């Protein structure tokens, strides 16, 4: 399966990307498993707070991700 990851705010600063595609052999993957993979690729993300949305809906760690899903990595913003 192939999914699109979007990074916002400080997370885009860490990944130096706004968007990228990930391809896996699995047909489906949980949000927590994806989180581990992404944190493996970008270790500095481990030290930040963020929430994950799947297809524009907030997920929990058990949410299943499937082919063509769009995953948003959303940190809280601080500025005012």
């Amino acid at each position, binding site marked *: 399966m192939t999914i699109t990851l979007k990074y916002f705010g400080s997370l885009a600063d860490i990944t130096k990307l706004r968007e990228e595609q990930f391809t896996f052999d699995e047909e489906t993957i949980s949000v927590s498993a994806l989180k581990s993979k992404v944190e493996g690729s970008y270790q500095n993300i481990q030290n930040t707070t963020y929430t994950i949305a799947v297809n524009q809906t*907030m997920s929990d760690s058990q949410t299943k991700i499937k082919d063509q899903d769009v995953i*948003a990595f959303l940190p*809280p913003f*601080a500025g*005012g």
Partner: protein
Amino acid sequence: MINTKRYNRQIILPEIGETGQQKLQDARVLVIGAGGLGCPVLQNLASAGVGNIGIVDGDVVDETNLHRQLLYTLKDCGNIKAETAKKAILELNPEINITAFSEFFTTQNAPRIVEGYHIIVDCTDTIAVRYFINDLSAAKKIPMVYASIHKFEGQVSVFNYKNGPSYRCLFPEQENLNAVPNCAESGVLGVLPNTLGTLQATEVLKIILEIGTVLSGKLLIYDALHFQTQIIDFTKNPKAVEKGFINGTLLLNNKKNNEDLTPEAFLEKCSQLGMVVIDVRESDEVPEFKRENVIQIPLSELEEYSKNLHKNQEIVVFCQTGQRSQQAMNYLKNSGFVGVFHLARGIESLKNQIQ
């Protein structure tokens, strides 16, 4: 009596009318922060005829504010923001009541300040403050209209609206010491907070007028650089809502106040015999604050260090702006320490007292 001429162009909207204008006139809205977001919120609410507005800000106008904070001019630099904003918006609309609170919004003054307001607009720049604004809003059952910005991006949402989800449902507070927001200054495109603040003001007016669909349970994300918007749906997490409600209720009943220290209270604590004072900043951060009982333990090492302390040991923690020390204090309290305090607005608030 409503000035029907001034508000004619909105009164002729069937969704508003004179009834709606009266609702605006009777509304009581508290705007916390009179900076990048606060300025457009205040301008728009005042012009629309929101009858009672509170402005909370303890800062003074600085030249670096002027590229985005359009209420202020060069001659205002050095003057108190809340008072300056009050004067500027009364010039826009002298027919409304403005209360200026020239103080930073803290757990100490919050119960007094929020009293009597029906809506809170969060225009602050500190995540720790945002959590307790959420908690007060949850406990008082009044909505909180949120926005925040990062460089070219912004977020908007409305929390605790008619029992809807809260800020904690979207971003649960991390008790993990490593997950700390960065307090370094990052730049911002001047127009960005004006866009986001205008969206906040729009939500405030809709809430007061009871028209349209309020941005509750939805997070709007706006990317100015690529002109992209997204709306993320999120639902209520009962545990997160309850946590906020309990915290907020404790705050309102003054049960939680004395752990946030003012600069004066902090210096007094530092001079107390037997007090352990921990600087949780990294070793290269300035200004230095050295006293006999001050030790430097960066946040990432605090967990290990605190294992050697007795749980009855009184501890004061501080950092640059108060964000990391708040995390440190929460961590220590959760691990059983009973007397923990922190310098609420960090060493930066102490600049006048230390050389």
